């Protein structure tokens, strides 16, 4: 095994991992703000994929422009989902919100399967590749990384530099106290949920530019997001990005040492193990 192969595996892993990271960031944000495990996450990722695919193949819109529309759609859909399905059960036991989000997932996946069938799709979009020494980097993945970093930066600016961001953090710290200060918590929670689903749809849109997919593909990334969220600490969005990078590198490097099919076994065992020994995540505190 040459150092070149290892280097290019790591580079590949980092580039894909950062996109996993943005998917997981949405899940982590929602958990952090309202302690809801969002099981519609995979469906929203799938919708993001289809949004970019349909806008690109039928209207010829550049995927990255389409991504803006998809992000807006993801935000809106998230707010609607929150207001219809989650607002009523936000104070109920975990099972209620788990099943509420899962039922929305069933509805979206059911409609998606009926309309789009489960035939694999491919945008067939390419930006060529860049060669650095032994490492060839796909253009689409480099742009995906840039988009992810930009979105992460924007999210943090929003959360820490704006008034609305401050109210979100207030609600996530202590909802009752925030309400006493006059913050409309339902609207803020709806917005936070929308931002979470927006991140999911952006991740889906980015993945669609370099992988083929079906309406069911989102669930694979949802499971990966769970692993990442646990790696980075539940409720810590920046941790999710780091967790994504860790998972990406693992996925890049592990196949060099063992058959490809063993990689998910290691990932899920790691997931359960971390939950057991450090439920706060590798990066999180207690």
């Amino acid at each position: 095994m040459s150092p070149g192969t290892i280097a290019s595996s790591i580079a590949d892993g980092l580039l894909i991992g950062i996109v996993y990271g943005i998917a997981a960031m949405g899940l982590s944000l929602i958990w952090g703000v309202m302690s809801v495990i969002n099981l519609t996450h995979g469906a929203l990722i799938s919708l993001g994929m289809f949004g970019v695919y349909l806008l690109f193949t039928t209207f010829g819109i550049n995927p990255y422009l389409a991504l803006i529309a998809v992000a807006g759609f993801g935000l809106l859909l998230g707010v609607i989902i929150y207001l219809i399905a989650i607002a009523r059960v936000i104070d109920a036991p975990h099972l209620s919100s788990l099943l509420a989000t899962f039922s929305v997932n069933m509805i979206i996946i059911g409609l998606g399967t009926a309309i789009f069938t489960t035939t694999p799709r491919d945008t067939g979009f390419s930006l060529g590749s860049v060669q650095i020494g032994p490492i060839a980097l796909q253009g689409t993945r480099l742009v995906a990384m840039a988009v992810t970093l930009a979105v992460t930066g924007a999210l943090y600016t929003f959360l820490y530099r704006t008034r609305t961001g401050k109210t979100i953090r207030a609600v996530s710290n202590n909802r009752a106290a925030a309400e006493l200060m006059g913050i409309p918590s339902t609207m803020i929670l709806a917005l936070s949920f929308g931002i979470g689903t927006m991140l999911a749809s952006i991740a889906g849109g980015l993945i669609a530019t370099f992988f083929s997919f079906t309406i069911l593909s989102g669930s694979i990334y949802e499971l990966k997001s769970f692993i990442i969220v646990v790696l980075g600490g539940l409720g810590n969005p920046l941790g999710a990005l780091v967790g994504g990078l860790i998972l990406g590198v693992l996925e890049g490097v592990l196949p060099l040492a063992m058959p490809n099919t063993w990689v998910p076994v290691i990932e899920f065992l790691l997931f359960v193990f971390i939950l057991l020994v450090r439920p706060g995540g590798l990066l999180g505190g207690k």
Partner: protein
Amino acid sequence: MKQWLHPGFWITVVIVLGLGLAPIITQDAPTREVSFTILLAITMAVSLNIIMGYTGYVSFGHVVFYGLGGYVGMYLLDSWDAPLPLAVLGGGATAALLAFLLGASILRLRGAYFALATIGINEAARTFVSNFEPFGGPTGIELQFSIYRSYGGAAQALWITYYAVFGITLVAIIFSYLIKTSKFGLGLMSIREDEDAAEVMGVVTPNAKTLAFVFSAILPGMLGVLFFFKNGNVEPGDAFRLHSSIETLVMIMLGGQGTLLGPVLGALGYQRLRGLLLTSDVKLGDLPLKDFQLVISGVLLLIIILFIPAGLVGWLRRRFAPLRRVLA
């Protein structure tokens, strides 16, 4: 002994007996297939209810016990030529052992963390078995057709598995009722209401939870063997479908968690509805209605969670006080 006079127990038993005996009396194979699916769903729901409804721990990994039990049983049947009863017991024992080992570790996690861990366990089990050569890796285990000969041919074997599933369902009902009315069950329910308070009051919560988990795992492990024996083959994708665990959760929610009758009615209702939707000829626009089976189930589930979270039986009991003496 007073608990055996409760009409709620007998109503449940009569429903299951009616379902189970119908195909035996008519000796009709299609009816048997319908009842088989429903009885299977009932046992899965009733057993999951022990850990979820009584104890309050939401598990997305119930199908792991079914899948792993099924795999072990099929392995015994195929590679060791074990007789079916032994394979069924082997499946149940493996599931119980797994639940014991898992219980000692992941039941320390509470609420959403436990739910997440069970998703992880399910995926870990599926991906592990896909790689595990003795279990046939990704292609799974396929039984030789000749194996059915020792049970009087394939047609007779189908009846034998049906009787066994029927028997297991009855055991599940009695077992669930025994737990519910016992002191042990009271301990579980106090864990559900407030785990810390239960501990203070003298419930040894780690042991109680682990035991509840083991009890909920045995029957699914046995069912898995019967189902895959009937099927003739087992594959990782069929054995560890996360979706089946969630369907079982939905059934419990429909009927009412923590009740005896609830999971039975929920499983019955869910499977009937599913059957109706899958076989209907109605069209919605130019797409057949059966394409929308998932959508309709989803909408139904959402309505129940938002408006009647106690499920049918829980709602009836709350709404009509006299029914509390009739429904368990």
